[in-house]
């Protein structure tokens, strides 16, 4: 299935990518599985995305966790803890 990925703040800078569309193999159907699949693509994904203690996610603009399901067409975002306000 095809999903849209967004990266923000230092994740965006270190990946050199703000947004991409990826085609996921069967079985990659949660945020956690997606992180594993992205890390397996090699550097810089492996290093940046396995710092999981510092990475937050959202699915379709709602905060998500590793167990959150993802579906075809979803917008999935990865970012550091929030520092606005």
């Amino acid at each position, binding site marked *: 299935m095809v999903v849209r990925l*967004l990266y*923000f*703040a*230092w994740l*965006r800078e270190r990946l050199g990518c703000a947004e991409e569309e990826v085609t996921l193999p069967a079985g990659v159907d949660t945020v956690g599985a997606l992180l594993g699949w992205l890390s397996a693509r090699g550097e810089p994904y492996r290093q940046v995305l396995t710092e999981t203690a510092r990475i937050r996610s*959202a699915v379709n*603009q*709602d*905060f998500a966790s590793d167990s959150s399901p993802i579906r075809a067409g979803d917008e999935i*975002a990865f*970012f*550091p*803890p*929030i*520092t*606005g*306000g």
Partner: protein
Amino acid sequence: MAFIRVGPEDFDLGQEMAALRGEAGDIGAVASFIGIVRGAAGAPITAMTLEHYPGMTERAIARMAAEAEMRFALSACRIIHRTGCIPIAGQIVLVLTAAGHRKAALEATSFLIDWLKVAAPFWKKEHLAGGMERWVDAQAADDSAAARWQSS
């Protein structure tokens, strides 16, 4: 319905106050909070860049504003959060609330800024003298400030 604006434009407190009063009707109290780019002690900050997640930011703020309006029986509420590069001493965020009594307006303002800090997808990058820059780390104190509203 709260007024919410996210974007690079600056705001004027007097104008926002006038707009709030126009929306609010018969009220007894208005409270406000403005966050400002501060030169941190020890590190000479020259500016701050605010990145956000367009779409999700507005949704997240609308949700917390709706909760505040109900919980504190607000008569009106305006939230403005700037994005992009803001020089030192520039305004970052405005929370403005109107209510019947002071406790509701003041508590709603605290509630909203506490939640904005942890639940609206903004990220701050500090620009230092000499061209250096660094992303600001999240503060554990911000999480606990927001969490206190869940137990009370």
